[in-house]
């Protein structure tokens, strides 16, 4: 009935595999979605080859934002930081497998923006990171 809430999304929302913190970590960044106040923090450990070894997220928000964070982290394990920098909107849409309007898209993209801002070492998770 409700394609937006495919089972995989509800599943990753309710039982996320990557929720938590990493301490110590190599990269950590957090930001909000100004539209709704949703919050995501992402911690990464990077191995000696510059690849993502471990990843965790924490925060609060809707099923879409939390499930995409979980799916996103699953997808970046083993990727190089340059590969992470190259990820964009389409990557998230592919992971979710659903179509989103402009507002919900912001929810879905929050984790990617936070991840990329962290990897780039920026002060803010801006929209332009995922366009």
């Amino acid at each position, binding site marked *: *009935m*409700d394609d*937006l*809430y495919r089972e995989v999304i*509800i599943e990753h929302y*309710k039982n996320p595999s990557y929720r938590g913190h990493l301490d110590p970590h190599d990269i950590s960044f957090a930001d909000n979605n100004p*539209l*709704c*106040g*949703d*919050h995501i923090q992402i911690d990464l450990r990077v191995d000696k080859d510059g690849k993502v070894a471990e990843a965790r997220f924490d925060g*609060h*928000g*809707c*099923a*879409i*934002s939390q499930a995409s964070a979980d799916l996103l982290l699953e997808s970046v394990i083993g990727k190089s930081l340059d590969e992470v920098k190259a990820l964009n909107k389409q990557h998230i849409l592919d992971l979710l497998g659903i179509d989103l309007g402009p507002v*919900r898209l912001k*929810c879905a993209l929050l984790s990617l923006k936070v991840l990329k801002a962290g990897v780039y070492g920026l002060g803010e998770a801006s929209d332009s990171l995922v366009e």
Partner: protein
Amino acid sequence: MSFNVQQIRKDFPILDREVHPGVKVIYLDSTATSQKPESVIEAMNTFYRRSNANIHRGVHVLAEESTAMYEQARVKIAKFINAPSAHQIIYTRNTTESINLVAYTWARANLKSGDLIILTEMEHHSNLVPWHMLAAERGVRLEFIPVMDDGLLDLDVYRSLLFQGPKLVSFTHMSNVLGTINPAAEMIQMAHEAGALTVLDAAQSVPHLKVDVQKLDVDFMAFSAHKMCGPTGIGALYGKTTLLEAMPPFLGGGDMIKEVKLRSFKPTTIPSKFEAGTPAIAESVGFGAAVDYLSSIGMEEVSAHEHEMIEYALERLEEIPGLKIFGPTADKKGGVASFTFDGIHPHDVAQILDRHGIAVRAGHHCAQPLHEKFGITATTRASFYLYSTKDEVDKLVEGIYKVKKVFG
């Protein structure tokens, strides 16, 4: 004319809209913006198709007509809130610009470092951020009347804050989250007795209640056409004549001047002094038509209907396990029900309701500090207007049970 909601619904073409195949919209988001009756849409069409011209300086028929329509709408709006005269109505873009206008002109001309402004914890960002900017720029102090658990303002704290000699008290007439209708007349009188001026954020009251600026004795009042059956792009600031006359202008440009030299200018009289450049002319015509429409129904009838709606809605919503409604009881509030539900994020609630055609809003509703006060980041908000029906409330309740199902 007796109030007939089915009849009224026929005036609003959008209510026939199918948002999903076979599913008509159930519009419960009027607090964000109202829908527009055909008469308002048609008034603007007719303007563009018959009369459109720039105003004020034109002597040709179209310009004379446009000017007359622009000013007639002002007269209608003045009457609607019982303003003593039409030149006390300044056209702005919206409530937000109206409040900023006061902050940029009256406040910057009259307040200095250390002066106190009293606000409340239930303000919309529109009645917070302009004062934050002023505080940062000028060192003006801000204090807040607390919101109590029941969604009402703590007037005892207000009373004690007044002893600090505030210069201004600026507050919302009706909360866009809690629905709380604040005792504006009493609060304004208290402010005046303490020697303060008052700004009333009437974005949610003028559309829903009979508001009389003379009875309220308010100094400034801000509201938006789009929330009261009118078009986007236009709002109003009401002000007392002596205040408006003494204030410096806001934006500089055409139509707000008496005389311009190469290096200096003299501003003209109110209201033009505050209306620089080509204004929202078609929108003023729509605003006037909106006021005509609401007047033809009667604001007492509109309020009574909304009161019936919120009573019924609260009754039905309170039945739902896991649902928590914020704000006071129905007798102290307008047609707004904001709630949290069973740990499910409001975005998800709203999104799933939308799949059933039910349009509600989810988020902080531009009142982050209020949400923070209640220890939450977001609520789902259903809001009602003259075209809302009990049947729509029933559908909302059914929808919420369906949300529950999706999240198992």
